[in-house]
C-alpha cells in the first residue's frame, strides 16, 4: 500500500502498519536466529564433546573442509552435478511437455497410456538403475537418464491434468470462431497452463536432483553425489556434510531461478 501524501493516516492505521512491520521483522529475525542458534549449538556441542564430531561433524570443520576442497576441485564437482541436473531437468520438461500435448491432442492415446502412466508414476525409478547403466553406460549419460526418468512421468501427469482442466467454455468460445485443434492448443490451452508449467518446474528441480544424486551414488567419478559416497567410505563426515550443504544451496538457487523466470513471464502476460 502506498501512503498518500495529503491525507494524514488515522491513528489506528498507523498502529496497524507498525504492527505489520514489526511482525515481518520478527519473522525474518527468527528465521536467521534459528539458523545461527543451531550452528552455534552444534559447534558448542561438538567442542564440549556432548556429541561425537567424528560422526556428525561440526560447522568449523565443515568450513575448513570447504576451503580445503575448493583448492582441489570443489567447483568441478559442483559443475558436474549442476550440468547433469540441468540437462536432466530440461530434457524432462521438453519430453514431458511433448508427451502431454500428444495425450491432449488424441484422447485415444491418452486413454491407452493411462494405466502405464499410473504404474510408472508409482514405480520407484531408481529400481531401474542397473538397467539404465547397462543401456546408457556407466557414466554421465546414465546419471542424466536417471534424472529424466524420475521427473518425466510427474511432468506428464501434472501437465495433462492441467490441460484437461482448461476452462471448457473458453474452448467453446474459440470454437464458435471456428478454431482448429491446433489453434485451441496454441491460443488457449498452452497459455492458460503457464502456471501449471511453473508449478511442475518447481517440483522437477527437486526430482532431477534426486535422480542425479542417486545416479552419482551408483556410477560416477565426479559430482556432489560422488563426494558424499566417497566421504562416507573414507569416514570423512566433514566432506559428507559439506557436500550436503552445497547441495541445499544449489537446490535453493535453482528454485529461485525458476521463480524469477515465472515472474518475468507473468509480467509479460500481465498476470
Amino acid at each position, binding site marked *: 500500500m502506498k501512503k498518500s501524501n495529503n491525507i494524514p493516516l488515522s491513528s489506528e492505521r498507523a498502529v496497524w502498519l507498525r504492527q505489520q512491520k514489526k511482525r515481518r521483522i520478527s519473522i525474518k529475525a527468527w528465521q536467521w536466529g534459528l539458523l545461527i542458534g543451531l550452528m552455534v549449538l552444534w559447534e558448542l556441542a561438538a567442542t564440549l564433546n556432548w556429541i561425537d564430531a567424528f560422526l556428525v561433524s561440526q560447522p568449523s570443520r565443515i568450513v575448513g573442509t570447504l576451503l580445503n576442497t575448493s583448492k582441489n576441485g570443489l567447483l568441478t564437482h559442483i559443475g558436474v552435478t549442476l550440468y547433469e541436473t540441468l540437462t536432466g531437468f530440461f530434457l524432462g520438461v521438453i519430453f514431458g511437455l511433448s508427451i502431454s500435448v500428444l495425450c491432449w491432442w488424441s484422447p485415444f492415446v491418452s486413454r491407452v497410456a493411462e494405466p502405464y502412466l499410473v504404474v510408472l508414476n508409482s514405480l520407484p525409478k531408481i529400481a531401474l538403475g542397473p538397467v539404465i547403466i547397462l543401456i546408457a553406460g556407466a557414466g554421465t549419460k546414465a546419471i542424466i537418464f536417471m534424472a529424466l526418468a524420475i521427473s518425466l512421468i510427474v511432468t506428464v501427469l501434472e501437465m495433462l491434468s492441467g490441460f484437461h482442466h482448461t476452462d471448457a467454455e473458453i474452448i467453446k468460445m474459440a470454437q464458435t470462431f471456428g478454431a482448429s485443434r491446433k489453434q485451441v492448443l496454441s*491460443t488457449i490451452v498452452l497459455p492458460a497452463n503457464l502456471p501449471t508449467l511453473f508449478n511442475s518446474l518447481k517440483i522437477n528441480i527437486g526430482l532431477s536432483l534426486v535422480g542425479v544424486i542417486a545416479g552419482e551414488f551408483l556410477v560416477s567419478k565426479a559430482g556432489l553425489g560422488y563426494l558424499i559416497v566417497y566421504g562416507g567410505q573414507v569416514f570423512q563426515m566433514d566432506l559428507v556434510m559439506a557436500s550436503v550443504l552445497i547441495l541445499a544451496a544449489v537446490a535453493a538457487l535453482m528454485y529461485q531461478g525458476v521463480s524469477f523466470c515465472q515472474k518475468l513471464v507473468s509480467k509479460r502476460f500481465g498476470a
Partner: protein
Amino acid sequence: MDMLRVKNAGFRYQAENGEVEAFRNITFSVPQGQFLSIVGPSGCGKSTLLSLIAGLLPRTSGTVEIGGEEAKGISPHIGYMLQRDNLLEWRTIWDNVLFGLEIRRAISDETIKRTEELLRTYGLYEFRNKYPRQLSGGMRQRVALIRTLAAGPDILLLDEAFSALDFQTRLTVTDDVYRILKAEKVTMLMVTHDIPEAVAMGDAVLILSARPAYVKEIYPIVFDEDRSPLSCRSDPRFSQYFSHIWKELREDEEVK
C-alpha cells in the same frame, strides 16, 4: 427478408443409456434485424438448438439457411455469446477483441479499423491496453460483445449471455447490449430461462416444449418503437406477455 430460416430441424444423439431425441421438427425464421427470444422448460435443449444453428453440432435432420444459403459447418456469418465473458486473462483488452479475427486469420487494416471504431463507440478505447481483471463485470461483457461483433457477424446467438452477472449489472448490461445490437442492425437469437428478459429484449418469443422439444408457439411482442429493455418493463403490456408465457411454460412443467 428472413436472415435465418430453420426448417424441420431435428437432433438425436447417442448416450450411454440409449438414444436421446433432443428435439424434432423445429421450424422458425427470423427477419433481418429482429430479435427472437427462445424460452423453454429447463433441460429441453435450448442451448443445443443454438449449437446446432452455429454448426458446432451436426443436425440429424432438416436445414438451416443463413441469408438464403444453406449453412454447412461452422458459419462465419454467426457470432456466439456464451454465459460468461470468457475473456483471456493473459491478453490485453485489445488482443482480446481481436481474438476472433485472429482465429479466422482475418486481421487486416480494414478489420482493425472497424474494431477500433467499435471500441471507441462503446467507450472502451481508453481501456484497450488494460487487462480483463482491471475491468468491471459490465465492461468485460461489453468487451466480449465487441470481440464477437469485430468478426462482423450477421446473426448473433446469445446463450444465457447475462446469467453470470448480478441482477443490477444485468439490467444495465442488457440495456447496453440491446442498444449496441440494434445500432449494428444484427439479427439476434437469444436463449434464456428468464422470462422478463425474453420479453424485454425480444421482438417475438419462441416457446419450446419439454423434451423432445418442438415449437409450441411464436409469440409476437409489441412495444413502442423507441423502447429499451429497461423502459418496457413498466409498460402495462409487459405483465400480460409475462403471464401468457409463464402459463405456457408451466403447462409443460406439470405434464412432466
